[in-house]
């Protein structure tokens, strides 16, 4: 009987196991994860910390026991310390096992750079549920008047929102020159910043943090920011430590092809620990998204079972709701092209076109157009730059407030008219 290992049990690991079980009902599946927690989306940590989601509701696929029973999984609550090229693993308890296939799905951890000096117990990260519980407990037991959130991206902004809603005076600190440096055009970021300033948030950009201690933050320029609490939200790092000796190719994360296979045959990777194909650049990149992890995991599981599934890649995309505002970013904002803007009192859509090709999009205040634009962007990359909107898409975009001229600009054919 064939045997498979799944290392890490988040969204990618779960979907890998599920798909593998669907395609291969009779194989052995061992799952290694030290957390003893059911798979969940790390993004929910802030929601849980904010009290918006009860503990049990964090786990969309049910309890670990139910999942293991339903998918017939052997769950090992320990870390895998090493994976070798011959598909052997070594665990914390010195368990050695050889497998027919391995899925690496260790996800990513909150990044705390080694160069940063952190001391005291008033600083936090926000990735795991334990992070959320720690922050929650601190807020509940201490009087926190001021806070600094280091990192002005998706996680940082949600943490800032949570703190702000509890009456904390929040300053967002980022090494970049504006909010959402990877997702927002500067103009979008400034717009969002203005909205947040109106709500009383403070900002400090181009700021290199050198130390965090009981008093707050020290910056490279010698200045300091007083804060009762600091939350570090500067991104994640793929959990690849245990694969370093496996001869699996690793860049920022484990590199995979469109079948989710690593450079070592039989070893697959999915989710935040891997670099799938970025459709826009053709290169591999981490696209750390729940749905992406699900699709990658499902693809890897099918291929491990011997099927031929394809995961053609994805684009960078994100939707975040904070302070009753929706911010959507689609595509790689660094790609060149001509910038276009549609602005009205209710929302704005800003985008970059290279000729007829849509490169990237920022939307604030209109989530309803996001799915169509994202679909269009992906279709363009898989079906050719001449991809035009269908009548249904045009109608839906217009119904949701985009002017005809703008719709025509993004996805009109030469025969169409605005």
């Amino acid at each position, binding site marked *: 009987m064939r045997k498979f290992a799944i290392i890490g049990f988040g969204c990618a690991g779960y979907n890998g196991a599920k798909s593998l079980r669907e395609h291969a009902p009779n194989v052995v599946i061992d799952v290694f994860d030290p957390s003893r927690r059911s798979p969940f989306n790390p993004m929910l940590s802030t929601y849980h910390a904010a009290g918006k989601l009860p503990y049990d*509701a964090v786990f969309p*696929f049910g309890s670990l026991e139910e999942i293991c029973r339903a998918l017939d999984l052997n769950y090992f609550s320990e870390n895998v310390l090493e994976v070798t090229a011959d598909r052997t693993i070594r665990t914390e308890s010195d368990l050695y096992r050889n497998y027919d296939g391995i899925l690496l799905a260790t996800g990513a951890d909150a990044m705390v750079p080694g160069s940063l000096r952190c001391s005291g117990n008033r600083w936090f990260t926000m990735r795991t549920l334990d992070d959320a519980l720690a922050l929650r407990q601190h807020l509940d037991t201490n009087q926190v008047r001021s806070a600094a959130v280091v990192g002005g991206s998706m996680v940082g902004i949600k943490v800032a929102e949570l703190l702000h809603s509890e009456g904390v005076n929040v300053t967002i600190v980022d090494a970049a020159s504006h909010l959402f440096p990877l997702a927002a055009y500067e103009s979008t970021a400034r717009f969002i910043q203005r909205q947040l300033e109106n709500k009383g948030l403070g900002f400090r950009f181009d700021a290199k943090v050198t130390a965090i201690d009981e008093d707050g933050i020290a910056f490279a320029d010698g200045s300091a920011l007083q804060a009762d609490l600091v939350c570090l939200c500067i991104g994640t790092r793929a959990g690849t430590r245990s694969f370093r000796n496996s001869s699996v190719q690793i860049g920022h994360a484990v590199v995979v092809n469109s079948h989710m296979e690593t450079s070592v045959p039989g070893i697959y990777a999915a989710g935040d620990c891997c670099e799938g194909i970025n459709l826009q650049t053709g290169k591999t990149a981490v696209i750390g998204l729940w749905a992406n992890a699900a699709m990658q995991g499902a693809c890897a599981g099918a291929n491990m079972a011997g099927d031929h599934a394809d995961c053609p890649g994805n684009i960078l995309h994100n939707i975040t709701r904070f302070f009753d505002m929706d911010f959507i970013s689609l595509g790689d904002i660094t790609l060149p092209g001509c910038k276009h803007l549609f602005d009205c009192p209710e929302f704005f859509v800003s985008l970059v076109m290279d000729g007829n090709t849509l490169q990237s999009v920022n939307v604030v205040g209109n989530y309803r157009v996001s799915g*169509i634009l994202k679909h269009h962007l992906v279709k363009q990359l898989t079906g050719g730059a001449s991809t035009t909107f269908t*009548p249904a898409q045009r109608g839906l*975009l217009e119904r949701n407030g985009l002017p005809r001229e703008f719709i025509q600009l993004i996805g009109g054919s030469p025969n169409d008219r605005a």
Partner: protein
Amino acid sequence: MKYVFVLDESKCVACSACAVACMDQNDIDPLAGDIPFRAAFVDEQGPVEDPKFTFLSIACMHCENAPCMIACPTGCLKKDPETGFTVFDNTNCIGCHSCAMACPFAQPCFNDNSGKMTKCDGCVERVKRGMQPACVKVCPFGALSLVSESEYQELMRTDARKKISYKILD
């Protein structure tokens, strides 16, 4: 039995009776900014002398591999095993809008009152009791229908007229 919503485009005049029936069935309040789960509209393209009109009624396609379901971090969305509809229980919805960005048809919508997402449930409780979805029932021209998987295959095989369902839009 799994079902497929089919729009026979040749019969639709975008009169929006379907949208109104949806609002009646689901107590949608446009004055509060809510919109129906189904929308009808006319698309006009081509040269001014010879314009091409398309009349459409669009709602959730209840996709087989529903991208909204995959995208939801709290597991609010699932496929109803009996009907195949993409149904939801938004108790745990955090309003993150991930489902909206995943949907190619702009279907999930956010309810400002509840702070939760919502969408067409295919009138699943009606269908389970042998009734038609409200939009299908009202359609004055029979443009909308709900057919079983097998009827759908037969329809696609025998009827060349333009039909819209998730199968051909995907």
